[in-house]
């Protein structure tokens, strides 16, 4: 599996470290991965803009 590095500002990094430990994550990676996954799944769940547009266009008042 490929790995990539992401740069974080120091302030944020400190916070991440602090809360990862507080929340009981075993590593920083685990915490960050979890956060990203959660955020992505939220986006995936919501309808795509294209799909929304298509539906709205079905209404007589809109074209």
């Amino acid at each position, binding site marked *: 599996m490929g790995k990539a590095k992401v740069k974080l500002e120091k302030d944020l990094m400190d916070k991440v470290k602090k809360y990862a430990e507080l929340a009981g994550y075993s590593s920083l990676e685990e915490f960050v991965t979890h956060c990203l996954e959660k955020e992505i799944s939220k986006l995936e*769940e919501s309808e795509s803009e294209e799909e*929304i*547009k298509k*539906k*709205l*266009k*079905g209404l*007589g*008042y*809109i074209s």
Partner: protein
Amino acid sequence: MNKLNRREFIKLSLTAGSFLALGGSSAPIIKASGKKETPEKLIILGLDGMDPHLVDVLMNQGKLPNFRRLQSLGDFRPLRTSTPPQSPVAWSNFITGMNPGGHGIFDFLHRDPERYIPLFSAAASEAAKSAIKIGNLVLPLSGGKIKNLRKGRAFWQILEDHDIPATIFKMPSNYPPVPTKQQTLSGMGTTDILGNPGLFNYYTTEFLELKEDIGGGRIHEVYAIGNKVEATLPGPRNSFKKDRPESWLDFTVYLDPVNPLAKIVIQDEEFILKEGEWSDWKSVRFPMIPTQSVPGICRFYLKQVRPEFKLYISPINIDPSAPALPISTPPAYAEELAKKFGGFYTQGLPADTKALDHGVFDDGEFLEQDNFVLQERMDIFDHELSRFESGLLFYYVSSTDQRQHMFWRYIDQEHPLYDPKLASIYGKTIESIYIEMDRMLAKTMDKMDKNTILMVMSDHGFTPFRRSFHLNSWLKENGYLNLINAWKQGEEDLFMNTDWSRTKAYAYGINSLFINQAGREGEGVVRPGAEKEALVREIAQKLEQVKDPQTGERIVSRAFVAKDIYRGRYVEEAPEIIVGYNRGYRASWSTPLGRIPKNLVEDNKEKWSGDHCMDPNVIPGILLVNRKSKVEHPALYDLTATILDVFNIEKPEEMIGKSIF
């Protein structure tokens, strides 16, 4: 031999299970609501879009004798509509007895301020909260839901508290139907099984300029090979699978080599149509996973066999005999109607205005299709009227509205699409639907006794829609909205090319205008408070002065500031300004979805030629009632208070109307 299918197997095991669970008693019977005998009976006919001016003219010509008769028994008045006068808003006023500040429906569309995307204002679907994923399969642990976003209680819920029975047929803005034991069937806002307002499918061998996905329909290019056409019917997305792929059904059409006939074979259905013929309702089931499929019903129209093959399939409606989504209360009400009448349109606005707009239907074909809708309505109306004995019966008709939208171009000689030749054929379409309603009224009046109060009402009237106004372009021209790339203007919608950091206001929906407010919008810049207040007043004032360069007429007769006109708990959620267009003008087709064309005003060249999304003062609805109205200028929300008054129920505090009696 007759095959035993999976569904029957499941049903069998369910039967066995429920049989044991119920100790052998029969299936549960759903209890109908309040059976109290009421001394007063109330019948309300809700005829969408009936215009007081037209009613007056036709009555004077003696063409609406029963309207006249009803007037002579009581009153006929223009009925003040909602601001803005859009059907979902107006009917919500009527349902709740409040204005949009109280029920939270401000336009057909609202927007997600965070993402600047438009959404339907009436209902939202929520995915299942949790699910197990196994490979490509997604098994939801809780059901996904559709939520009715209208706030406030519906008057039939209040009637229920007092044990007054009510039947509410196809009330708009009530999807999914709010929980009640009353008999209700959802109306405008009810989607097809794909979650669209209605998506038709059109199959043709003809080369068309139209793209595959057009608003409200899908065009499929097909080939007739050896007198056989093979095609697919798209179904709902399969939420049991990863990435929710679209489901579909294959079907085959066999053409006779010479005779203008075709046989369509789709799942268990097999039927022959002549050219120009419609099928009755056909059932289809879209398989999702082995134990789950989504049922729906649709009608087929064989427009042409040769030289080019043309087949139209109606939007796939929720099957009332086995609703995949909630459309009635009690749930068995839809099934009961299906048992008696077979399939019927459950889709909110079934007239296929989009098929007519895109040229898939001609005027005659559109009317034939909407006649099916009307006939189904009338059949069920006869049934409901004949068994109505106590409480309230509300019955809704959509054809009045839809036909005025599409055929106004034949009664308005100034309309850009007016065609004298076609007007000689279709010029009486609108008049005929008014006369049809007069017949409906006649039947209703026959049923009336001395304790019956009869109201005929509409949510708004109608005016021509000749010229369209690009509200977002006006905002841009006046510096309230700025683009990222000026040269790209007009190419993108959903404000894709908008520089939000330099944008103060934007318009989504048909009458709504929003301020790009800091802390509310994703990239808001206008600070709430005095800054915003001043900006709102400034824009409203400027809008009221905009003139059509071609005619010199004012385009906006009133720009309403929401907080001046709304009352209730949800005023904060309102758009800042509600644009009331002058007679003949409306927001352009580009405005609702956030497109910013280069010009400001242009002719409306769509067949959708009559409209009502204007200044509410321009297009009141109607009220005819067999009692005198004490209120001089009654409004929609006054009728809600009146309903409660008829049954001696005290009006809840949040209702703003007063009884007309």
